């Protein structure tokens, strides 16, 4: 709808996936995986609501659609959002509480190496841009922490990241996601 979708497209195609931009309900048809990219979470939620897509996206994810959410996408999935726009609606599918811009404004945006559970080898370059701060992680598996707070979590077929792998040049997380999307939801 709005945000850094083309960077995700490039990363996913580089690891061999075929992609489609989702802007209407029909675009959701027969997907193996869905990416909720970074962008402005208020803008993205509003556009999804106006297109009547919030419910269908929620149902699809609940029904086992593999989902990769980055930054604003993580905010969209979170059960509780603090410091959002009054009345900001999300999908409420992930048992975490996030604070919007919890690391500060743009001048506080940063890069940091991350140790991510399940990724072998070297650290992952974390690119954090006006990132959400995860203040509480409930029924989720925490894959990585930074500075004492979770920055990558997983629940079932949902992977949510506070940073931007699509800007990092490191394709490992996209490769893992494609592998997840290719496994049957009901295995």
């Amino acid at each position, binding site marked *: 709808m709005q945000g850094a979708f083309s960077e995700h497209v490039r990363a996913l195609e580089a690891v061999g996936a075929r992609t489609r931009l989702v802007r209407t309900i029909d675009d959701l048809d027969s997907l193996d995986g869905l990416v909720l990219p970074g*962008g*402005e979470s208020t803008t993205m939620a509003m556009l999804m609501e106006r297109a009547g897509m919030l419910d269908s996206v929620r149902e699809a994810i609940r029904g086992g659609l593999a989902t990769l959410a980055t930054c604003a996408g993580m905010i969209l999935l979170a059960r509780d959002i603090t410091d959002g726009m009054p009345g900001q609606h999300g999908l409420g599918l992930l048992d975490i509480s996030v604070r919007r811009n919890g690391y500060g404004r743009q001048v*506080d*945006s940063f890069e940091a190496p991350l140790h991510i559970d399940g990724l072998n080898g070297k650290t992952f370059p974390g*690119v954090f841009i006006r990132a959400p701060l995860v203040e509480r992680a409930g029924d989720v598996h925490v894959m990585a922490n*930074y500075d004492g707070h979770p920055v990558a979590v997983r629940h079932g077929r949902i992977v949510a990241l506070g940073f931007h792998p699509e800007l990092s040049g490191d394709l490992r997380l996209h490769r893992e996601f494609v592998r997840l999307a290719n496994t049957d939801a009901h295995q």
Partner: protein
Amino acid sequence: MAERNGSSNGNEGVKGSFKVKAGLAQMLKGGVIMDVVTPEHARIAQEAGACAVMALERVPADIRKEGGVARMADPELIKSIMAAVTIPVMAKCRIGHFVEAQILEALGIDYIDESEVLTPADEENHIDKHPFKVPFVCGCRDLGEATRRIAEGAAMIRTKGEAGTGNVVEAVRHARAVNAGIRKLKGMNHAELVHEAKLIGAPVEVLVECQKLGRLPVVNFAAGGIATPADAALMMQLGVDGVFVGSGIFKAEDPLKRAKAIVAATTYFDKPEVLAEVSAHLGKAMHGLEIPAIPKDELLAARGW
């Protein structure tokens, strides 16, 4: 891009690198950035679906009408707009006025527009934008100008268009000029690229990157004269990543409705049936100006070099 700056926050993290500066612009893509002069305007813009707002004292149409020296907005006004919304807030400084930029950075603004809409403070030099942690967006009329700004550290580019006119013709001219400039690089060998760089006043290394990517290496928005949903979609179909709307919204009869329509038109820019729907019943657009009716020395796009 060379990463010449960035500082450690003491916990392995590095702030203000070019990657995070250009990265915020990536997050704005497919969105609309709206000029606002009050916190109330900012809230309307956010409600309409703007992905960011530009905090100003006067919109370009009023700057044009009232004349006089146009400067950075009052920090108090900027702070009140920052407090009113959760989306990123941008503000303008004069071309070459690096102290206005330092002040905006100290306020914690999310993006600085080094803008020809304000009265230039330096007629030769733009700001050296690399040492700043806050990212900059700059205007351009063609590929040479765009690449010079990127070499100075701009993390985002926009067309200049002709601000405050409600007339999209100059924005179209500038977007097409950038596209044509990039198309021309296709198939050139390095020696030819160096020659082309000389002709258009472009830094060779940025031009090399444009050739490799087939586009500017940073996000490129349209600005200057966009007043209708169709204008926004036109610019998107010409290949820009998003749009700035200045006077076009709050100088129109029904700002919220028009703002929402322009947001929808930017998302569904290639779906004429959606554009037809959102373009209806918007009330009067801003009146607008024919470019030849503007005295040559009052053209804003000619400022900056």
